[in-house]
């Protein structure tokens, strides 16, 4: 009993339980969900699909966990994805040329440079959010809303209103390639996760983020530069969204300013909430958010595979976010405890009268 109590106290316990539940559901109701096939030396199957498609979401949830831990939010990630996809696609693009009569594609600029530029743009966008919030004191929801709305316009300008198709083959590896039989994207997630975790655990940044999110004023008196911390987390969030943008454009081999990353901010916030992180800031766990992201991707994939109209997913997710936040709300819990108290009181009364 004591052991179970200890286990449930771990933040990651509940998202893992949720993941297991989704998996169990699939075990019974989705035939062939766990089937893995080897085709051309790669693994195929729903599980691999979840990992591959969930990679951008996992990246976003890493950045967003930090942002939410400082008591903020970032709803511009979808637009940052669109912008970085547009930048990457227009730089990599791929022009068709003929070499010895065989058609080949070359990039506008070398691919590493293109990706570097893309990530720099994403970092700058994150810093823009961070500056508005940390230096000008604008509420995070409004500051990032500005980029969310205007960002799609910027992406449109970059793509000149067109969907840019990418023809350059090596670029497809990021979002569609395989390494050791697994999707390459998951390795990128792994590397980013490793770097961020080292950054959080081996330096005091993690502590400072928690402190700033929990009590900004007290943190200032303790010598923490709260605005710098905020700037850092929004920058990281921008960078994560940028990498996600590269993965997505590589996976779908094009950049669509209107639809790339559309509505993904809800998934990302939901992932962080699923991970049991407080929506008001403070204590956080990135691995828990990653598991949360996997749960959401599994739900999405499940919905597709059991034949429920996929249109309903947005509705379901929105309701789940509300439920999780309700569960975090002290007043909501109080309402229930008082109700159960009343219940218990009635029971006792009943017993007494009996």
């Amino acid at each position, binding site marked *: 009993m004591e052991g179970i109590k200890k286990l449930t106290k771990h933040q990651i316990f509940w998202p893992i339980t949720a993941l297991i539940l989704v998996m169990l559901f699939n075990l019974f109701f989705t035939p062939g969900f766990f089937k893995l096939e080897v085709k051309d030396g790669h693994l195929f199957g729903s599980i691999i699909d979840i990992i591959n498609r969930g990679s951008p979401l996992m990246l976003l949830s890493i950045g967003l966990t930090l942002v939410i831990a400082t008591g903020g939010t970032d709803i511009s990630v979808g637009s940052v994805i669109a912008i970085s996809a547009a930048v990457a696609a227009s730089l990599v693009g791929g022009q068709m040329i003929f070499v010895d009569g065989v058609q080949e594609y070359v990039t506008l600029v070398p691919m590493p440079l293109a990706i570097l530029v893309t990530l720099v743009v994403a970092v700058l966008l994150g810093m823009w959010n961070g500056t508005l919030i940390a230096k000008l004191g604008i509420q995070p929801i409004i500051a990032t809303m500005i980029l969310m709305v205007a960002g799609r316009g910027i992406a449109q300008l970059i793509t000149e209103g067109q969907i840019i198709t990418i023809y350059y083959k090596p670029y497809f590896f990021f979002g569609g390639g395989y390494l050791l039989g697994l999707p390459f994207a998951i390795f990128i997630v792994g590397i980013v996760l490793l770097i961020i975790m080292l950054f959080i655990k*081996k330096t005091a940044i993690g*502590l*400072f983020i928690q402190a700033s999110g*929990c009590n900004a*004023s007290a*943190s200032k008196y*303790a*010598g*923490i*530069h709260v605005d710098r911390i905020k700037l850092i987390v929004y920058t990281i969030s921008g960078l994560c969204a940028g990498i996600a943008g590269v993965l997505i454009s590589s996976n779908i081999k094009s950049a669509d300013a209107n639809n790339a990353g559309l509505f993904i901010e809800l998934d990302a916030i939901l992932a962080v909430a699923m991970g049991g992180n407080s929506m008001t800031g403070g204590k956080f766990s990135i691995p828990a958010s990653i598991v949360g992201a996997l749960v959401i991707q599994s739900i999405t994939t499940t919905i597709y595979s059991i034949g429920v109209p996929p249109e309903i997913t947005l509705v379901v997710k929105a309701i789940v976010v509300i439920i999780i936040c309700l569960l975090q709300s002290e007043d909501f819990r109080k309402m229930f405890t008082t109700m159960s108290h009343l219940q218990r009181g009635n029971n006792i009364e009943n017993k007494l009268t009996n």
Partner: protein
Amino acid sequence: MKSENTLLTMKNICKYFTGVKALVNVDFTLREGEIHALMGENGAGKSTLIKVLTGVEKLDEGEIHLLGQHVLPKSTHEAQSIGISTVYQEVNLCSNLSVAENIFIGREPMKFGRIDWKTMHKRARTALEKLNVDIDVSQTLDSYSVAIQQMVAIARAVDVDAKVLILDEPTSSLDEKEVEKLFEIMTKLKNEGIGIVFVTHFLDQVYAVCDRITVLRNGEFVGEYEIKDLPKVKLVAKMIGKDYEELNASIKGSDSQDDEAHSNKEVFLEAKQLGKKNEIEPYDVIVYKGEVLGLAGLLGSGRTEMAKLLFGAEKPDTGELCLEGSKKNIITPLQAIKNEIAYCPENRKIDGIIPDLSVRENIILALQSKRGWMKYIKRSEQEKIANDYIKLLSIKTSSAEKMVKELSGGNQQKVILARWLLTQPKLLILDEPTRGIDIGTKTEIQRLVIELANKGMSVIFISSELDEMLRTCSRMVVLRDRVKIAELTGDKLETNVIMNTIAGGN
């Protein structure tokens, strides 16, 4: 006692906050046409009693009778409607609304289903004229001084046909003249038959206007007295309790010879014409090594602002700061920490603790920022430090991993103290370190302060309680209206002298 004149009785009032007893069996009676002082130190339960009476908090046990009728207000609105009005310490009005609206919002005069602004302005003017205030009532409240805002609050409270008027430390941000005016108004209202409950920290004010006194201590009822039966010294003794003599005996002693001592003591900090516009006028101050310097003055006198400038929590716009003889530029807390200055802020809950972090994390926080984010203190070292300080300051917690919000106020304060002691400061600034904590911890903290000073640390001590300052400080700087007005040492360190200096008399 003329019982037919009794306006309000509160009997056996009890109130518990998650495990803490805030009020235990407290009685309180108020007569028609009297001014009744409610006295007690910080944390004695005055504000809780008022909150219970005005419906902000629900009482756990006890009864309230108003004019013989049993009442139980569930909200401030309800309290107001039965005639119990309150004016709070911080002006609790809306500064974005006009003066007239602040008096009438919620019960605006209506005409044809719409707010009748003309009548409202007229009535607001009359209401304020009664209090001898003549201002443009259509202006927003924030265009007037705090004193005027206070008057507006009183006008609102009285205009709702109040039978009981509660004034919760209304004088803390008023100057002498404004206080006098307030007293005039209070007397006038009293003569109209209103019962006034007056909460204040200033003993002289109690004796200037009040008829009776009720004293609370640690949430318990001490007694109810006619003003003429209770001289000032006895009142203080009642407020502080029997611990008063004990405290004096146990702590006092080492600071008798300090007058000559200062001349050969080394200077740690010297501020020359340090100031910030609208916060505090430029001031000079010297802090010697190994002394406890007190900053005396009322709330809002500039004592906290003075400390904040030294700590870099506010950016000075004039003057300079020298530490051990060399000029330093301190404009952020981090720079102060790196220069071995520590600051325990006034408001523990808002500026002190990080509630959701563990005791351990709260303790190492300042040291960590002093070392920088790159040099993360190893977990094992953190645990050792935390446990050492828990022992050293006898912090009552089941483990270093407990969240600090689960600790009692006094222990939270000790955690903050540990945080700063850990940075090994040469100057420790304590702003109201004993507010709202139990008397035992209070004594411990006072004793600690003197010990630290004896070991050579400089301490700046700020407190609303003069007695506490007298016990700990060897020198005092007095502030009034954001100006440093005096420095007191030696035999001038005496209640009357300090009180008079604060009040601006002779």
